[in-house]
């Protein structure tokens, strides 16, 4: 359990990054634990939300970023709604994930990022979500090709709930605009996270 505190991560570094990107004042957290008490998935998290907040306060990025905590957050906003210090904890969780995906800090859990990547690719290319392709791609990439295909997936197809053709943006011009937009966004995101030109 011993941990050597690093002043630079308390004063600037990690904690500053989280505060800047989430626009939340983490030092406001007085560790009441209300977020952890109401979080529906805290039971499965390595560190419950309040502990995550404390780890940000102390700049413990190595422990927190390699824990499953933020990846297990379902964004249900229960914590945000009830925090007595008006901290948007859900947004902080989002920020941790954004930072992890941008690769600024080390990450361990790889499940969710793969899903996100496919999901956003789908939107980028088609404007909408192409379910069967997505589920397939996800299962392939996460090395679990038959996950969920039986029995739910099959039933879904039988019930006509999943379509085989991608829903497209019909207008090709819109499609190109869409792809261009994603390009611009990616550039801006990197600038922001790595504090370039901002």
């Amino acid at each position, binding site marked *: 359990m011993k941990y050597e505190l690093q002043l630079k991560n308390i004063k600037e570094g990690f904690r500053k990054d989280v505060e800047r990107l989430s626009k939340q004042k983490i030092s406001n957290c007085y560790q009441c634990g*209300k*977020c952890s008490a109401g979080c529906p998935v805290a039971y499965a998290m390595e*560190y419950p939300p309040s502990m995550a907040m404390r780890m940000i306060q102390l700049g413990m990025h190595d422990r927190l970023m390699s824990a499953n905590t933020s990846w297990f957050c379902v964004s249900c906003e229960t914590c945000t709604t009830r925090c*007595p210090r*008006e901290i948007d904890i859900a947004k902080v969780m989002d920020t941790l994930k954004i930072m992890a995906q941008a690769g600024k800090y080390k990450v361990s859990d790889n499940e969710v990022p793969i899903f996100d990547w496919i999901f956003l690719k789908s939107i980028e290319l088609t404007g909408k979500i192409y379910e069967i392709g997505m589920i397939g791609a996800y299962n392939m990439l996460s090395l679990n090709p038959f996950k969920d295909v039986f029995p739910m997936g099959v039933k879904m197809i039988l019930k006509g709930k999943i379509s085989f053709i991608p829903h497209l943006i019909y207008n090709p011009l819109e499609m190109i605009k869409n792809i261009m937009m994603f390009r611009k966004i990616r550039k801006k995101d990197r600038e922001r996270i790595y504090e370039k030109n901002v």
Partner: protein
Amino acid sequence: MARIGVFVCHCGTNIAGVVDVARVAKYAESLPGVRASIDYKYMCSDPGQNTVIEAIKKYNLDRIVVSACSPRMHEGTFRKTMERAGLNPYLMEMANIREHVSWVHSDDKELATQKAMKVMEMAVAKVRRSEALSKMYASIEKRALVIGGGIAGIQAAIDIAAAGYKVVLVEKEPSIGGRMAQLDKTFPTLDCSACILTPKMVAVAQDPNITLMTYAEVVEVCGYVGQFDVKIKQKAKSVNSKCIGCGVCITKCPNKKSLSEFNEKLAPRKAIYTPFPQAVPNVPVIDRENCTFFKTGKCKICEKVCPTGAIEYSQQDEIIKEKFGAVVVATGFNIYDHSNYGEYGYGEIKDVITSLQFERLLNSSGPTDGHVVRPSDHKEVKNVVFIQCVGSRDEAKHRPYCSRVCCMYTAKQAMLLKDHYPETQSYVFYIDIRSAGKNYEEFVQRAQNDYGVVYLRGRVSKIFERGEKLIVKGADTLSGAQVEVEADMVVLANGLEPRSHAKELAQLFHMSYDQYGFYNELHPKLAPVETAISGVYVAGCCISPKDIPDTVAQASATAAKVCALFAKEKMEVEPLIAAVNPLTCSGCETCYNVCPYSAIEMEDKEVKRGDVRHVAKVIESVCKGCGACVGSCYCKAVDLKGFSDRQVMNQIEAATQELSTKDKLQSTI
């Protein structure tokens, strides 16, 4: 030419740590009229004041500037110093280089020093135009008004009366006693609240120096220290002085539609009632909004059964005018209304109760005769969860402060529950335990160690009903675990807040209050029971949450202040008042119309030989020096002593000029 002395204070490092005081003193020497300038470590200390007096003698000074802290802090001190040096006290000005400079500009010492020089220069400019003023005195009405009959008001009234002064105690409820009367036993000694309070209530009723006015409220206040003119509304009780308190009317009254405020709405009460059996005075009142007779014209049972003919339906509200020399305000507190907490059921789950309701349940003269049962189904309880800091330390609910007593009363309540029912189990959810007081920490430890109360460190996120049980979802941050407790009852440690009408009362007296409505003391440390309004004192929970020992100490302190005031024959008042120059007055009556104190009268006066004009005149004993007349007079015929046009204009001039170049030269050398 004036002979001015400038005294620059270091205030230890409070000022000198930021401002280069030597440079300020040096700069003073360059200002016209300044004959001496001295800096010293603590100017308000005895040697500091002696330095001032010696300098006045040595340099033959006729006026001085003390460049130190706020005049609100030490103006009085240095006026007395002036007197001791044989000078008129109003020829002294303070330059506030602490609160207004060193403490707020500590980020840039150079700019702070320059500003300190400027602030000092402005005071020098002002004092140059100061005039000697003669002292004024006012008489004192040696009667005190105490508002609020909780333990604070009771104690203040008893102490003032003991010194031989008359007191009127005004209480808006039908009985005195306040919140303490509602409590069961009190921490940290667990003695019974009623047992220690009732004797004091009786003492109030029997004291010939105390006039008790219950069911009454202050509605209007004029005047000032020594001479407050107060209007008190005595609400109609519908029961007159023939009442002997036999209680037959209460027993026979068929109307029990209202809920007892005293029992925190846990039980009904009659339309004619005393809040509780030991009420003082033991005279019932009729709640006209709910009485059958007042609503429908039929009933009158109470009148029929009363053996003394004390029922008087025709009574009217009465306005009583009284004069007082001093006022003690002790209006106490309400508890936070947890219907703002959706996660705790919007106040709609019956078995989630407030701390005060729990006190009533514990109390053997309470609605359940001391049986702790669930309000929903009157079943006895086994598992009880206590949640601390409800409506306290919660910015999201706009109550960021700590309510100071709830950690303690929660421990108390958990212990009392165990005393009543050894087979029960209590769980306390807390964030921190604040138990600073004599024997307080030991008390909380006892709850944990001897009474087996389980303390869990975390705020509860949600309470909901499952069947007959309440599910409490909390956390224990120390172990990092989510915990769920199945409870029969949940008791919230509701925070303390001022009475809902506290602001209105403050406005009657022009007292200041904070954003919650708690009254502001004159100084948080050195004048904790005085207010900015001289002659008005405050005690108890209307200032901030506190326990009974602190409340009583404050109440006695207000009594000491009142007695000190009354012990004087006359009272010195500041002569900083307005004066009209009849030669320039055009008789427009503007000032007459704006003066909030009616301190201006119009008279026909011979201003020059043979020239009789209609002009304004200030009644000196009435003028409070607000300056409204000065700000309104188009002819500049009225001026304010101590803040005269010439003084302020001089300050403006100094404020807008650059520092003289001399200092710059010196600082570069």
